[in-house]
């Protein structure tokens, strides 16, 4: 299959410093927060890949790396035959890939400039990257996009505070698809919306993918939503991929204990208690021990092996990967 995106051994470490005073002339010891730690996966052309994990697992950092808003510490990001990890984030604005990888933000309100009308927001990428400067062509294209995402044209002159959350989400989507990107990254696109609107936006996204032939990287913590839109799912925990596989297979038979917990956490009517079997607190992502499984301490399985060797992401069946010494328990 033809891969649109291939991420190889990608790492992003953020330096954190203990700023507490610890004596004159001593430089505070520097620590590294392992936000994304040796992550590899690929995304086939036209595929929709889900990225699941809890806050702080590095999914937002991964999104910012792939959209080239921040520079990776190490690793490769192959997009359309080019290693875009090499382009410095500073120069990404003028690189061709910028129009090809676009992002729909989590918070539709926060991602719109309060001083721009809906029209201005949608027109922005067309003006900067699409080289459309004539006002009538711009007008036509923006109206066409508004139609495509189901945004009434009378709303184009409104400011973000004058339209509803669902309408803002549509503006954000219209802006992201304005340049017909090959890869659209959706960063929890419906988490700030009400269920009634969520359903509309999810259906819109499914339609757009079909009509425009885009590939999706769908980031979410809501497994019920991921199921609806994604062919394959990647599960991340503290900067590492713990499981990866076909959506249905993964939901039917999760292999990693964390994936199991995530699925158990989906509310079920009248069960009165969740089946989540986790304990303790997550390990610190700052200077983690490279030999200890990241899930150690929360996992019900506390074998010696888990404390001595980091489990690697291994293929279990075709297209099914898991990083655990004791999968399927």
């Amino acid at each position: 299959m033809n891969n649109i995106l291939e991420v190889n051994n990608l790492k992003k470490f953020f330096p954190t410093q203990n700023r507490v005073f610890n004596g004159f002339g001593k430089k505070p010891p520097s620590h590294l927060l392992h936000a994304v730690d040796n992550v590899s996966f690929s995304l086939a052309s036209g595929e929709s890949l889900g990225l699941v994990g809890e806050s702080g697992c590095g999914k937002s950092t991964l999104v910012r790396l792939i959209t080239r808003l921040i520079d990776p510490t190490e690793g490769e990001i192959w997009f359309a035959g080019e290693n875009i990890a090499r382009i410095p984030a500073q120069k990404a604005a003028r690189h061709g890939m910028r129009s090809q990888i676009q992002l729909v933000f989590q918070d539709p309100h926060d991602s719109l400039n309060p001083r721009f009308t809906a029209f201005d927001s949608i027109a922005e990428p067309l003006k900067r990257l699409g080289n459309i400067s004539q006002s009538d062509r711009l007008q036509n294209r923006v109206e066409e996009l508004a139609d495509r995402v189901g945004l009434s044209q009378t709303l184009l002159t409104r400011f973000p505070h004058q339209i509803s959350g669902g309408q803002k989400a549509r503006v954000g989507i219209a802006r992201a698809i304005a340049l017909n990107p090959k890869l659209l990254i959706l960063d929890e696109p419906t988490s700030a919306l009400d269920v009634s609107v969520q359903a509309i936006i999810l259906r819109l996204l499914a339609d757009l993918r079909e009509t425009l032939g885009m590939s999706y990287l769908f980031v979410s913590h809501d497994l019920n939503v991921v199921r609806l839109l994604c062919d394959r799912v990647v599960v991340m925990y503290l900067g590492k991929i713990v499981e990866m596989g076909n959506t249905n297979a993964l939901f039917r038979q999760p292999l990693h204990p964390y994936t199991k917990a995530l699925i158990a956490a989906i509310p079920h009517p009248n069960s009165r208690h969740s089946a989540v079997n986790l304990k303790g607190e997550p390990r610190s992502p700052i200077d983690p021990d490279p030999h200890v499984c990241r899930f150690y301490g929360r996992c019900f399985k506390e074998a010696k092996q888990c404390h001595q060797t980091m489990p690697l992401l291994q293929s279990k069946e075709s297209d099914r990967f898991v990083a655990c010494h004791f999968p399927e328990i």
Partner: protein
Amino acid sequence: MKEMQPKTTQETLLAVDRLSVEFATRRGTVRALENVSFDLKAGEIVGIVGESGSGKSVLAFATMGILDRAGKITSGRILFDNIDLLQIKRSQLRQKRGKELSMIFQNPRAALNPIRKIGRQIEDVLQAHANLPPKQRRERVLELLSLVRISDPSRRYNAYPYELSGGMCQRVTIALALACSPRLAIADEPTTGLDVTTQAAVMDLIVDLAAQTHMATLLITHDLELAAQYCDRLVVMHAGHIVETAKTSDLFQHPRHPYTAKLIAATPDPEKDLAHLIPIPGNLPDLRGELPFCRFRDRCDRASSQCDTVPLERKLVGNNHQVACHNHF
């Protein structure tokens, strides 16, 4: 709108009776709640569900007596243990609040004082409401911390909120709310912003503690699935009206109000695919100015001429199942 007199049995702890709340804004009066009635028995967990803007938080705040200054209770009674909370003195209400009624807030970090140790904060509540000598107070705090499943309570006693994760902070606010063994706890979106696994753990905790202490719990949430899992009964709100109340299983098996049915159809769950996810048309009506008798009228496909002419009454359609609709299922 005529309402049936809520039956006040021995067991009924909280009875909200035809409560109406208005907000004076610069652009007219918002009728945030109109003739809202429901009751809550000791030890019962009732969920109030609805989209944002449906008035569920206003209802919680009004019950706690902590409405914003702009909000005015225009009619109705809030009977707590057969005492009308709207008639008693502010000082009496303050006494009840924290001791007999308590609240778990949406954003745990904002509900905690950032520069005071968490143990001290719980002690403050005990000092204000419980007659305990200082030594026993500390004991009680440690007891509470272990009750909310915080490991190593004597060490966490000295922690500041920023040192704890979001889930931990929410556990602390639960400990705060339960410090004086209240008879009623109102949880306003207690798990919004928490990870799914943490959400499950926090909800499990609330439900377990409620069962242990025979505490009545009002869970306010936009998440229908979550409410379905943990609540005995559900109250469905739409645009300041209660449209349906029923036992959770009844509500899901036989929703009687068109809005409830649509809400269920719009909520993703593991058995649904995208084609079966049906959006709800339209938006919540503007609550300023003239409103039809039924505020769901413009979004409803079962609307008839009766909806415009006959005021809504709440009908009993089953065992403890009430619906406010002329053309209900």
